[in-house]
Structure formats: structure tokens, C-alpha cells
């Protein structure tokens, strides 16, 4: 299977290693991976701000870039939800509606792809320590991905998964929300981090780098030693 | 235009554009175009036992959770004795009640002063009663509720104003769930419903202070249901 990677813009800039981890895992499983270099951003920031026309032209760009891809794998539940759920809405009644739906159907969030498309839940990873998993809201509720990341983590050697009380509570990132309402965003992050602290784990794992950026940001300010990892970075370790 | 016409015309104007119909995971519409048959709810609501005995047992269990006193009586005499004991233990001086086969039978044996509601009553008189004795329309196993009406329970206030409400019911009044209770009421009253019907589920309660449960907020602190053959 030929897989095209969709690397969200902030992963490209801040967490490129996560993208490389995905490449490593997919190749280890024997798949050819491709990165269409003309890709930019899914268009979620203007979309969430209400500027749908501006979001649509950006989305059109990605639709063209991935037109000939067989399967598109994306490392973030949030950007994945943008493509899978919101592209069809954004293009409702638009000449390219059918194309938007086609891209939505062939796009998969990384953990969803491994577990539900490839049927793989053991990627042969080894990562010793105690960890808790944070559900990114878009992955959890738009894409309904409660189970796949946990199934993958269960098979990581040496890893003990501890559920936190507020696993499904939003970390407070929310894109531009974090900048427009920093006080609310921070309070939500504090609630999240208190719940993480309660578990006494060594690291927090998530399938969304944007949530991890928020959680890391708060943990650093609090001086907490808990480490943060993207799911792919954990699964890439052998 | 009258107010009625103003609002109705606004509504009709608004509804000219149709809203997307809710489609569900299986993409099958449950029904078209009006409500599903009421008994279809039963497949989603909490399960109820098939036999009357199982339903009585469920009612008992629900009563415990709700802090309702529930007692299955072997005969009318047992019910009478039970109420007499309640009256003696709690020092009832005055009780409110209405005319009815069961209430009459029990009331005969009680020495307390009686306030009959069926022909009207003074509010303060009823308010000062120690207990209210009523019959009911039905008992609902699924929820542990009693359905009362203005007709079967001596009006609106008798079952809520005194601090202790006692319900006398017969076994054949036990129904499985709200659907059946409402259906029975519709068959019984047709277009002549009483102006008041109430599902009572446990004694009055509140959680308004720090979400801590307190019984007897404004209505009865105690609810006792006696099931007769």
C-alpha cells in the first residue's frame, strides 16, 4: 500500500521528529511512504475563526496535492477531523464537494489507520515506564477514536498505562482560542495537568501534538518533571 | 393581525426552509413521519421483569433506592393495622384523606381527626395534618413511581401538603412502565382528563445546597406505599 503523509504545519515546524517516527513505523510494517512536498496546512485556523472562504481556498490546495494519493495518513486527530468531518461541510454545495468527500474518505488519523485499516495493534515497540494517555478532543469525539491508541499502547513492551480521571476532558488548547482567551485556556490546562499529576506517571502520551504543546507549556511553568510524547514517538522505539 | 396569527405566520415563514432530518449511525430512519409507537421505547428504557412478581420485586428495589417505604400486605386488615401503628408511633392527631374504597376502610379504624378533601377544605386545616392518605391510578415498576390524579388522590394538595403521604394501592394497579401508565390513563379518561396528574417518585427532595441530598424540601418527607391484594 502506498501511503501519503499529511504532516500538519505545526508538526512540520515544531515536532518534525513525530513525522519521522510515523515514517519509521510504516516502513517497518513494510509500506511505502510518500510525502507530497507541496502540502501546507489543512486550513483549520481560519475555519475555526469563522473565515470559511479563506479556509476553503487553503483546503482546495490540499485537495489538489492529495488528489492522486491512495491513502492519506495524518499525525493529528484535530487536522484529521478537519479533513474528514469539516471538509465535506466546508464544501457543501460547492463544485468540489465530491472531491472533498473523496479525500475525507481516504484520510486516516495515524492510530486509526494502524488499528482499523491495517489491523495492526502490535508494532513491536518497547518503551519502559508508566504513562497516561490524553485523548485529543477531535480524535475522540469527531473521529470516535477512543480505542485505537490504547490498543496500540497496550502492546508496547515495558509500558504501563494508567488512566487519569480527566482523560476525556479538553486540555484547553483549542487553536486560536488559546490566544484569544488565554485565561480560560490556561485554567483548563491546569485542571488537565492536576489530573495527570494525580496518576503519578512518568509521561503523558497523546495522538495530538497540539494538545501536547499546551500540556507541556503548563507542566514547564509548574516545574513538573512529567515528560510528553506523541503516540508515534512511543511506537517508534524498539 | 392577532398575536396568534403573528406567531403562527412567523413559524410558517421560518419552516419554509426545511431542516436536515436527523440521520443516525445506521442511516435508517426510525419512523416516518410521526412518533414511533410508544411501546417501541421499551426496547431502550431500563428492563422490567415479565411477571407481576418480578415487577413487584423491582418496585421494592426502586423504593429502597428512593427511600420510599413499600410494604406488600396480605389483606386489608394488615394494611389497616400497619397504618394504625404508624399513627400511634408518630402521634398523628389529624390526617387528611378522601373518599375511596381503600381509604374509607382504613380511616374507619383510625381515631385521629379527619380532614376530608373531596368537597373542598380549608388550606390551613390540611396544612396542619400529620399525614395524607390517598389511593392512586397506578404504580410503575420501572421507576418506583405512583401515578395520582385529582380524582384518584383527593385533589392536588392532599398528596403533597402533609408531611407524610400514604398510598393505598391494589396489586392489579402495578404496571411495567410510564408508557403503560399513560396509555391506561388515556383509555380511562379519553377526552375527559382530570386537570391534574402526577408521577410521584419517592419523597420530596432537594440537592440545592452543595448537591447534598435532603428529603422533605417542600413536599412530604416520608412516602409510604401499601400494596394490597
Amino acid at each position: 500500500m502506498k501511503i501519503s503523509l499529511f504532516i500538519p504545519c505545526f508538526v512540520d515546524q515544531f515536532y518534525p521528529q513525530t513525522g519521522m517516527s510515523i515514517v519509521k513505523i510504516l516502513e517497518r510494517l513494510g509500506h511505502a511512504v510518500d510525502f507530497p512536498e507541496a502540502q501546507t496546512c489543512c486550513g483549520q485556523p481560519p475555519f475555526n475563526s469563522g473565515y470559511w472562504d479563506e479556509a476553503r481556498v487553503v483546503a482546495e490546495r490540499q485537495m489538489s496535492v492529495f488528489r492522486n494519493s491512495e491513502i492519506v495518513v495524518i499525525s493529528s486527530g484535530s487536522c484529521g477531523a478537519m479533513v474528514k468531518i469539516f471538509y465535506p461541510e466546508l464544501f457543501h454545495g460547492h463544485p468540489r464537494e465530491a472531491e472533498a468527500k473523496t479525500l475525507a474518505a481516504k484520510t486516516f488519523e495515524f492510530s486509526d489507520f494502524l488499528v482499523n485499516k491495517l489491523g495492526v495493534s502490535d508494532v513491536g515497540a518497547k518503551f519502559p515506564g508508566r504513562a497516561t494517555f490524553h485523548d485529543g478532543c477531535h480524535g475522540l469525539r469527531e473521529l470516535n477514536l477512543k480505542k485505537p491508541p490504547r490498543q496500540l499502547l497496550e502492546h508496547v513492551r515495558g509500558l504501563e498505562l494508567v488512566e487519569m480521571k480527566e482523560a476525556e476532558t479538553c486540555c484547553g488548547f483549542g487553536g486560536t482560542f488559546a490566544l484569544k482567551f488565554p485565561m480560560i485556556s490556561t485554567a483548563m490546562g491546569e485542571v488537565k495537568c492536576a489530573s495527570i499529576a494525580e496518576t503519578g506517571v512518568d509521561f503523558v502520551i497523546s495522538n495530538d501534538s497540539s494538545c501536547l504543546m499546551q500540556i507541556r507549556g503548563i507542566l514547564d511553568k509548574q516545574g513538573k518533571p512529567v515528560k510528553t510524547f506523541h503516540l508515534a514517538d512511543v511506537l517508534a522505539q524498539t | 393581525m392577532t398575536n396568534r396569527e403573528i406567531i403562527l405566520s412567523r413559524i410558517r415563514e421560518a419552516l419554509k426552509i426545511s431542516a436536515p432530518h436527523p440521520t443516525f449511525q445506521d442511516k435508517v430512519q426510525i419512523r416516518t413521519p410521526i412518533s414511533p409507537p410508544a411501546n417501541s421505547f421499551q426496547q431502550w428504557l431500563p428492563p422490567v421483569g415479565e411477571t407481576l412478581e418480578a415487577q413487584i420485586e423491582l418496585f421494592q428495589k426502586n423504593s429502597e433506592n428512593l427511600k420510599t417505604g413499600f410494604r406488600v400486605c396480605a389483606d386489608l386488615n394488615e394494611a389497616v393495622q400497619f397504618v394504625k401503628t404508624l399513627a400511634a408511633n408518630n402521634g398523628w392527631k389529624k390526617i387528611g384523606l378522601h373518599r375511596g374504597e381503600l381509604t374509607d376502610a382504613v380511616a374507619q379504624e383510625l381515631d385521629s381527626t379527619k380532614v376530608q378533601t373531596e368537597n373542598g377544605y380549608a388550606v390551613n386545616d390540611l396544612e396542619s395534618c400529620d399525614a395524607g392518605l390517598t389511593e392512586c391510578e397506578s404504580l410503575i415498576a420501572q421507576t418506583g413511581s405512583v401515578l395520582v390524579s385529582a380524582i384518584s388522590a383527593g385533589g392536588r394538595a392532599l398528596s403533597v401538603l402533609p408531611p407524610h403521604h400514604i398510598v393505598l394501592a391494589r396489586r392489579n394497579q402495578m404496571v411495567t412502565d410510564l408508557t403503560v401508565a399513560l396509555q391506561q390513563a388515556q383509555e380511562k379518561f379519553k377526552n375527559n382528563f382530570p386537570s391534574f396528574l402526577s408521577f410521584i417518585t419517592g419523597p420530596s427532595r432537594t440537592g440545592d445546597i452543595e448537591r447534598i441530598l435532603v428529603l422533605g424540601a417542600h413536599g412530604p418527607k416520608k412516602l409510604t406505599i401499601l400494596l394490597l391484594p
Partner: protein
Amino acid sequence: MTTQAKEFSESARRYTTDLRHRDLIQKALAGYYVKRDENKNRFQSWSGARDAAAEIKWEAVNHLDRYLEEFVSKLEARGTKVFWAPSAKDARDYIIGVARQNKVRSIIKSKSMTAEEIHLNETLEHEGFEVVESDLGEYIVQLRREPPYHLVFPAMHLTRGQISDLFHEKLNSAPTDNPEDLTMIARRAMRKKFCEADMGVSGANFAIAETGMISITENEGNARLTTSLPKIHVAIVGIEKILPKLSDLALFLPMLATTGAGQSLTCYNTLYGGPRQPGEPDGPQEFHVVLLDNRRTELLADAEQRDALHCIRCGACLNVCPIFKNVGGYSYGTTYQGPIGSVITPHLRGLHDWKHLSQASSLCGACTETCPVKINLHHHLLHNRRNAARAETSFSEKILWRGFSFVMQRPKFYRFATRCARIAQPLQRLVQGTIFDPLRPWTKTRSFPQTAKKNFYELWRERKTP
């Protein structure tokens, strides 16, 4: 920024840093979550029940004219007086008229958010009537001259100590930290009011078209007393409260109790179909139903968000909303708080003044997930944002997103912009945390990641051509 938006931000800033408030709300809701889940799990299929409830409300709301006419004709046939109120003022004027005609002095009220919406209490008091809220939580906030903090739990922001102090001050009761004692103090104070009131005012949870009845859900018994003892009962009912059939209650009552308060059924679910009928011992001589539009028809006209009229005001979306739990009920400045309030207030009171509530969300979707009638709440927040951007474009935002989309359509520009950002970041580090820091809203409370030395694009290219 509008006055409302400023007030929201200021209040949110206060509450989000008030750790006592955060703790109080978390504790108050902890028990609710447990009970809610317990009761959900008793359902053979909660999702089946939700689908059916959504479908029934869809049917009612999308044929609202037909069902309202049926409801009204059935009510009128039993001697109920129905008043159609296009606006809040029409409703208030009518209720004042009824009170005057009947020489009413004191009015007892049971909890009604619709009455809150039209500011009924203030108006009645202004006209010289005594109005007493009988629901315990409502009574507490009324004594404090505050609006309800939460749709369903009006006084959840107060501790027993605060309530004891309040009762001591207003009712001269002995201080106590026992919730039961406090409840009994209110019960005793209220009994007298119930017996003396000339008029009872209530809301309604459902309006049954088939039989012409309103249904009121409560736990305390105060609504039952409000509607039993006074000689007049006025119920104020939003037009969207319609359910087609009486049997629909068999589904809606348990669902409302489950998501509203974590109960299998609330203590009293009462149907009222008219004033006292011949042969009945008690009940009001007059029963008035005030049907309120007050711009609900504007929401109805928005087909995309019409399902927001399915709302049964259970408050479940507030209870799971991380925004609500952190900013608290009062920050909203609306009658209806939380996600549902953020969705509908722009329709009821104007998008210009209330769009900020739709922006103050991380769009986590917990509200939509919990809603018993499946309102697409968090997507409607997005719709409000889009409508706001269309209605009145903010020049600076427009420039920002135009620029963004210009760059993101052109991979070469994007690559260039990322290189610029990498060069600029050390400069940002120099001013980090100061007022010159462009990332200050973020960096004031959070660390900001370093841009990677090589971005993914570069790593990928290196790997391809070693």
C-alpha cells in the same frame, strides 16, 4: 470589543483564577457524574433512546405551527386561557394584567428559566407585587438578589456557610452548617407563603399537543404547591416546548432526569390540563398559559441551527463543559449559560453583542456528546463564528486570514515564511514575557516550544537524497 465581550473577559479572568470556585464546582459535579452514568447504564440502549428523542423533537419543531394549534385548542376546550406572546413585553404585560384584574397581592413562583428570560420578577416587583421564589436554590439566589448561576442548579456556587449566613441575615435563623437544617428553615418560611399567595407562576418542561397539557418536572414539591393552592395559576411556556404525544413523556421524563440531575426519574412529574374541573376538590379557578416566542422564531428560521430548539433545558451540557466549569455561570451574562446559552443567545439577543460566547470555546464537543436530544452544539458554535465573520468582518482579522490563506496556498511562500519564523524566534526569546512579546497571551502562563532546527520537509528531503 462590545461591552458584553469585555464583561465576559473580565469576569472569566476573575473566576478562572479563583481556585476556591474551581474546587467547589468540581466537587458539586463529581457526584452528578457518578449518578448520571449509573442511570444511563440502566437504559437498555441510551443511544437508541437519544436517537428517538432527537427524532421526536425534530418532528415537533419542524411542524411547530400544527402542534401549537392542536395544543392550544385542546387547552382552551378545558377552560384554560391561552395568551400568545410575540415578545417578552407582551408576556409581562399580560401577566401583570391578570394579577391586577384579580387584585393579587402576593405571588409564589416555581422555578422557570423562561420567566428569568423575560425578567418577570423585576417587573412584577416594580409593579408592587410581592414575588417569592419557592425552589430552594432559586429562593437562595433571590435573597441574594442574584440571577440563577446554573439552569438547573441555581445556587451551586454557594457553600452551606454562605447560605447559613444569608438565612441568618434575612430570616433571622440560627447559624448551622447542616444542609438539612438549612432546607427546613426555608421550608418553614415558605409554607406560610404558599398558603397566602393569590397567584402561582410556573414554567413548563413540556407542552403536550395531543392532550393539551403542560408537564412540570421538579424534586421539591414547590411547583406542585404553587399550582395547587393559589386561585390563579399562570404558566409561561416557550413555544419550542412542544411534544406531539402524551406517550412521548415515557421517554423524555427518564431522559431529562438522567442527564439533568442523575436521577432515574425526578420526584414529581406533573401534568396540568386546565383549571379545577367540576368534581375536583381543589386547584386554581383560573389557569393561564402564556406561549412565548421572544425571537425563538428567528432561531427556527435558521434551518442549520434549528435543532437548538430541541433543547429540554436539562443542563447536561453545562455540567460537562470545561469552559463553564472554569468561568462559572455568571460570566456568561445570559439567562441560559453554558454551551446551549452560547449557541442560542446570539439568536435571542443579537449576534453582534453575543458572538464572543461562541468564540470562547475550545470546540471540544463534550456538550454535543452528552446532549440527550443530540443538538449539534459545538458545530453550531462554529456556525455562529462563521455567521459573525460574514455579518461584520473585523478588518484586522480579515487581513490576518487573507494573509494566512495567501501563504498557505503557495508552498514556496509557506517554506519562506517558516524560515523567517525560525530566524525570528531567537528575537522573540529576547522579549519573551514582556509586553513586546507577540506570543505573550501564550507565554505568560505557558512555555513555548522551540522551532525545530530542521523541519519535517527538510528532514524528508535529506533522507531522500543522502
